């Protein structure tokens, strides 16, 4: 019956202007789209900011919901796997910050570039990698996106440059990518992310200067989750107005828990850069529920009440869900169905990540250098030789 309706609606939809589902939906009484008010962004050296209202289509809403829920579930699964010691090493989770990764992706094209620091699992997903590749990389298996050799902090994808361990070091890299974008002339921009802790690193200011001097299409984004490891922003920064820290670079401060706000701000920033005006700075005010990493309980420098308060008032998934349900873009049951599907997908991915074999020992020496004839690398003792192939 459903298939028939779909076929009929496809015919009715004509020259595929509207996806068939939309026509089908009309018969189920949901709205196609809804207009929402979003918070006005604080501006620095800008006359106008992003719009204060935005239109969210049902399709987009469901897509964002699914993506945010996937990131959330994936992070919680990583938490679980870490506690079971299936994931070792370091693991920095971004639950609470889903609106940032999904919102940023919604505001740019897949051909744009993105680079961030180590809280990168969400971005790895939104930039196009499947959950199983991410979880397998966390567990260090060959199905992982870096073949199991990178781990949590070193995940890469097309137009996604990682995944970088050293705080602040990725920002000059981002400026360089932006230079390449300008040079190639394909109208691409580079999103260069860093945190509130990294914002005090000297090399960030060096990158600001270069980007502004050469008018590079670089969007500097400070993901301000209020704590740099265990140090709150007031105790680390002389000026916590991170969007103004670019000084001569215009900036905007965005509510990072509202995906629509992030999306509109990103579109605005990307348009600014694409028009050749040079770099722009965005501060996303967001929050992380977990501690800095899995070895940090997260409650020695902040109260549980604070975490609870953010969870109950500003949770990004909850905010989107409420908006969609209240304006009849989706039903609660439909969203619950998505939850169930996402859970299953994550379970399968976790299964894969646990069962996949580790990379073979011969590959331990690969990719140290790029060289035509493979050369030998000494292993843990001088009689073990690995071939380094690239």
């Amino acid at each position, binding site marked *: 019956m459903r298939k028939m309706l779909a076929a009929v609606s496809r015919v009715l939809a004509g020259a595929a202007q509207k996806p068939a589902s939309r026509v089908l939906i009309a018969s189920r009484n949901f709205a196609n789209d809804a207009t929402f008010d979003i918070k006005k962004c604080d501006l620095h050296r800008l006359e106008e900011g992003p719009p204060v209202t935005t239109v969210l289509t049902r399709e987009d809403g469901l897509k964002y919901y699914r993506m945010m829920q996937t990131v959330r579930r994936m992070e919680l699964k990583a938490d679980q796997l870490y506690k079971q010691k299936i994931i070792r090493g370091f693991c920095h989770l971004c639950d609470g910050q889903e609106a940032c990764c999904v919102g940023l992706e919604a505001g740019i094209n897949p051909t744009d570039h993105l680079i961030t620091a180590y809280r990168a699992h969400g971005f790895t997903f939104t930039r196009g990698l499947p959950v199983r590749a991410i979880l397998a990389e966390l567990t260090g298996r060959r199905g992982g996106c870096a073949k199991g050799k990178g781990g949590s902090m070193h995940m890469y994808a097309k137009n996604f440059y990682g995944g970088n361990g050293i705080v602040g070091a990725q920002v000059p890299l981002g400026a360089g990518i932006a230079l390449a974008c300008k040079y190639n002339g394909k109208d691409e921009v580079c999103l260069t992310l860093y945190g509130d802790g990294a914002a005090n690193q000297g090399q960030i200011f060096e990158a600001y200067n270069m980007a502004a001097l050469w008018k590079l299409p670089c969007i500097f984004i400070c993901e301000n989750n209020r704590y740099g490891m265990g140090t709150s922003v007031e105790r680390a920064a002389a000026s916590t107005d991170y969007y103004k820290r670019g000084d001569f670079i215009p900036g905007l401060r965005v509510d990072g828990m509202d995906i629509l706000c992030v999306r509109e701000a990103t579109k605005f920033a990307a348009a600014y850069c694409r028009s050749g005006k040079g770099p722009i700075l965005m501060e996303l005010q967001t929050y992380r529920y977990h501690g800095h990493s899995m070895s940090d309980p997260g409650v020695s420098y902040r109260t549980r009440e604070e975490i609870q308060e953010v969870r109950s008032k500003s949770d990004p998934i909850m905010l989107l869900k409420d908006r969609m349900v209240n304006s009849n873009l989706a039903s609660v049951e439909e969203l619950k169905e998505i939850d169930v599907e996402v859970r299953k997908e994550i379970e399968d991915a976790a299964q894969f990540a646990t069962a996949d074999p580790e990379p073979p020992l011969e590959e331990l020496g690969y990719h140290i250098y790029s060289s035509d004839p493979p050369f030998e690398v000494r292993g843990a003792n001088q009689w*073990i030789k690995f071939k380094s192939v690239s």
Partner: protein
Amino acid sequence: MAAVASRAAGILRLRAAGAERRWCGPRCAGLVQGFLQPGGEDAAQKRRVAHFTFQPDPESLQYGQTQKMNLFQSITSALDNSLAKDPTAVIFGEDVAFGGVFRCTVGLRDKYGKDRVFNTPLCEQGIVGFGIGIAVTGATAIAEIQFADYIFPAFDQIVNEAAKYRYRSGDLFNCGSLTIRAPWGCVGHGALYHSQSPEAFFAHCPGIKVVIPRSPFQAKGLLLSCIEDKNPCIFFEPKILYRAAVEQVPVEPYKIPLSQAEVIQEGSDVTLVAWGTQVHVIREVASMAQEKLGVSCEIIDLRTIVPWDMDTVCKSVVKTGRLLISHEAPLTGGFASEISSTVQCKHVIDDFLEKAKLTFLSQEQCCLTTIKFAVVGIPNGVRKNVS
């Protein structure tokens, strides 16, 4: 650690009499004897779990009452003693106020106040530069870099500013009261950025001292020496030992001299040199060698990487005739290459020069305009510098 554990196991595998001799590679100054056999093909296939057993030294009663402490507690004790004795001493770094990520500064802020123990923002270059500034005015600066892997943004400050201050100002200024502490070495799950051993990078720079303890007792004494030493010092603390190493450590302050290596165990067949965590691996290796092969090993803990105690090591090698150096850092350019080439150079050339009645002249100096470097054998009484 896995490196040496497996290397040691490889070296010491016993074979039937009359087995082949093998070079043990560029790090050994002497041939390893024939009964030592390499691991073979299957070595590459087997995984070896990194492990070692911390071996505490016997309690030292010469410094007064002792208390059971692990490595981070002994560091806290040393810092406590410093802050108590020296009113100008300050401790700063990322997250040191609440006690530090490895709990090395627990309780110090409460005891000495927030203007003496304070957090810095996330800026290594700033931390060290700032520390140099404090030290230049004469106050004692104890800076913490959260992991040795993060010391590189501060590399310029250390090498170009701290190390050369006294020299370039003709002794008018110096930042000798600066000590930089950093957790060092592999810990098992640290991967690329929480496991590095960068001592070799700093060994290449005259003007600073680099010190690495092997145990809580050593750590407290060496750290107090570093703090009071009139040269900028970098003190690397093996992070895997923070909790694992427990010993009786004196409560009162005491100093262990810098640039003095310690012969932990006397022996006659081979000299084993190591520092930090590797010392414990080497101790196990030595006891395995004694037990299984009857090889008597002399173990030296280098303690100060630069300026290092050449005399102790050379004297030991003259006695045993063989040298094996083991460290966690990458092989090429690691500090073992410096030790082995110096020992061979001095050992061989000294011997030759003595016989030929010549003087061995070696001078190392680095300054902006002139580089004087001469290693020549020349007749006694005649000196010549090659510019």
